[in-house]
């Protein structure tokens, strides 16, 4: 009896199989990997990338790209921390506004949304390629973060805020719950709403979508807005976990996020892919990071290995498409 690697079930769950093999491999080499402490820890770390990457998936499905998610994460995290720590004081009006944890979080989300919408506005209004528009936002966002924090971390944000990042509910870390909810929302958007259908349509054939009367600009605006907000969710998770907003928080996160999307099987040319694939992609990257640390591989080699994994994933994907 032969098992063909081209069997549709094997093909569909390829990344899942890869993840399984990876876990098996690491646990054979290190007995620290398969402990519940370590596994929960890994999941807690991954949840940040999962949040960012679900937003990124929508952008990439639309044949776009968002390089600014790391900077948006940084700025929204810094503003959230700043408001929690010192509130908002307008001395000229002799006004002081203190912020509750919820207030800080909502503001952070709005900052992320606004920056994402700005990306979308530039892209649709001036027909600027997403790569360029979001590259600009990458440096603008980081610069604003540095200005706001003056380059100094904002720390000690209160125990209730800290518990978001480090707490547990029903034996599962809160960040994992949050990322799970985000994933479910985006899965619902892509599978069950016209909005999601149009994202695929635009990525599949923008011209045909336009001629079908779809309001392409509105969809793009919304997608970049969502991507920005998802980055802010990631920012809240990072900040509360560390109980501190670092000025360089989220730096180069866009790369891990794009990697997760690509490893998860979403095509960079748009129209094809799944949010669940991205989640597996993010887990693969997280497990790989964790495993390489456990195996005492030098951080420099870690980067090399990660790059090779990304290449392999894309090459396998290409070969699958050819076999079709």
């Amino acid at each position, binding site marked *: 009896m032969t098992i063909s690697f081209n069997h549709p079930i094997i093909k569909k769950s390829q990344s899942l199989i890869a993840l399984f093999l990876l876990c098996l491999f690491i646990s054979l080499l290190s007995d620290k990997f398969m402990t519940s402490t370590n596994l929960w820890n890994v999941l807690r770390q991954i949840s940040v990338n999962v949040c960012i990457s679900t937003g990124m998936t929508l952008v990439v499905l639309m044949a776009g790209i968002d390089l600014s998610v790391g900077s948006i994460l940084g700025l929204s995290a810094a503003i959230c921390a700043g408001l929690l720590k010192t509130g908002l004081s307008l001395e000229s009006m002799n006004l002081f506004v203190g912020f509750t944890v919820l207030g800080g979080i909502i503001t952070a989300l709005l900052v992320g949304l606004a920056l994402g919408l700005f990306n979308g506005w530039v892209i649709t209004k001036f027909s600027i390629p997403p790569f360029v528009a979001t590259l600009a936002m990458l440096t603008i966002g980081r610069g604003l973060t540095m200005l706001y924090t003056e380059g100094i971390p904002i720390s000690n944000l209160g125990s209730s805020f800290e518990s978001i990042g480090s707490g547990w509910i029903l034996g599962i870390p809160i960040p994992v719950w949050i990322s799970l909810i985000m994933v479910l929302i985006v899965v619902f958007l892509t*599978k*069950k*709403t*016209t*909005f*999601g*259908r*149009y994202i*695929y*349509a635009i990525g*599949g*054939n923008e*011209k*045909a*979508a*336009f*001629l*079908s*009367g*779809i*309001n392409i600009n*509105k*969809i793009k605006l919304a997608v970049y807005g969502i991507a920005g907000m998802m980055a802010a969710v990631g920012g809240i998770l990072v900040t509360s976990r560390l109980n501190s907003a670092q000025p360089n928080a989220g730096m180069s996160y866009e790369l891990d996020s794009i990697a997760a999307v690509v490893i998860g099987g979403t095509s960079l040319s748009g*129209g*094809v892919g799944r949010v669940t694939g991205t989640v597996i992609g993010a887990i693969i990257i997280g497990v790989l990071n964790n495993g390489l640390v456990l195996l005492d591989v030098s951080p420099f080699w870690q980067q090399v290995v990660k790059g090779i994994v990304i290449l392999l994933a894309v090459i396998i994907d290409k070969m699958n498409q050819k076999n079709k």
Partner: protein
Amino acid sequence: MLEAVKISKEFPGVKVLNQVDFKFYPGKVNAILGENGAGKSTLLKILTGVYNEYDGEIKLNGEIVTFSNIKEAQNAGIAIIHQELNLIPELSVTENLFLGREIITPLGLLDTNKMEAEAKIIFEKIQLNVAPKTLVQKLKVGEQQLIEIAKALLCNADIILMDEPTSALSDNEIENLHRIIQELKIEGKTIVYISHKMDELFRIAEHYTVLRDGNTIDAGEMKNTTEQDLIRKMVGRDVLIEKKNTANQFLTTILKVKDLNLINPVVKNRKILQDISFELKKGEILGIFGLMGAGRTELLETIFGIHPTNSVCELEIDGKKVYHKKPKDAINNGLAFVTEDRKTEGLILGMDISSNISLSTLPTFGILNDSSSKNSAKEYIQKLSIKTPSETQLCQNLSGGNQQKVVLAKWLVTNPKILILDEPTRGIDINAKNEIYNLIKELAANDMSIILASSEIPEILALSDRILVMAEGKLKDSFLAAEATEDKLLKSALPQ
């Protein structure tokens, strides 16, 4: 002499060339005539090595040759000047001229001086008065065409194929081109010339070959034939599709187009469409005929709101003034547009039938109702007899005819008042063609108003109640179905 013996070429389901024979003589201008779809461009692609799988033989000076790619055809001395010019606007004329065969110094660097000097010599020969450093984007279309000819001369081509070389040229530029062709003839070059312009062919061509539906119909010397004769050979068909003869009176005006103008977005002072006005009546099938480049597609696109910034026109639908800033506006006003190219404009090929059909009817933000869109997809699969295992089949797996039916279904679910069809049967087999014809007739009988643009005369004659003829961006003539004939339409559509 370049000669072809029994060349046949088949695409899945369609035979484009059927045992075509021809001879192109050196020192002569050899004209190829044929309607759109006769197989001219396929023939050119075979001769220039773009298609290398075909039956039959190509003989060059008596020897059988095969070109497996464009480079090999070039090396054999065959050059082509395409209807759409293949120059890079941002590079200079010299850089374009030597693209891919640059002259280099012994050190391996570009020898700009030598290339510019050679460019000058060639430009003098073809009397092109352009400095070698000029960017191509600054040239007029006629001058760009001369650059293409210079390219052909530069690689010492003996056989130069020209595909509608004068379609975008002014009278002076045409004169100049013809003068150069005369000189090339004296040098013994073989010129193959494709054009719809009869007067031009009679002026410069010695030999002709007429293609129709992939067959060689006739070949001979120009001096032994007449314009009437050639037109008859181009259009005459063994199987004539029945012509429509309506006595129907259409009374209610549903669409009024007044003074429609479309400006060329690149060259601002050139109009793509000029002063077009017409009316469409309720339940009428209005045919729009024109040759390639006449502006049919652009006219339909402008009405559908695709060129809002470059166009001016007054539109009235049901007596109400409307303005279409984007396709959505046109759709909301009861228009539907089946575009010319189903693959790039009509369908999302990677999506299934049901999703494609529901695309134009969904709100921007809302919950998908899969069962309802599946049901309506099923309904149309049956109604239009779309051949597919199920409504969840991806559109990329369907045949051309079935894809076209999906596009039609996508628009019919919007329940349009006015259905605009642009080349609705291009590249699909005769059966699907007939099914679509019957559907169009049935829709019109149920009071839908239809604009049908096509470059196929039989199609226009079979369906239209009234026919508008376009040429060079203008409305030339209007015929009632009863008075229209193939000859009249073609004659009217030929550019002056």
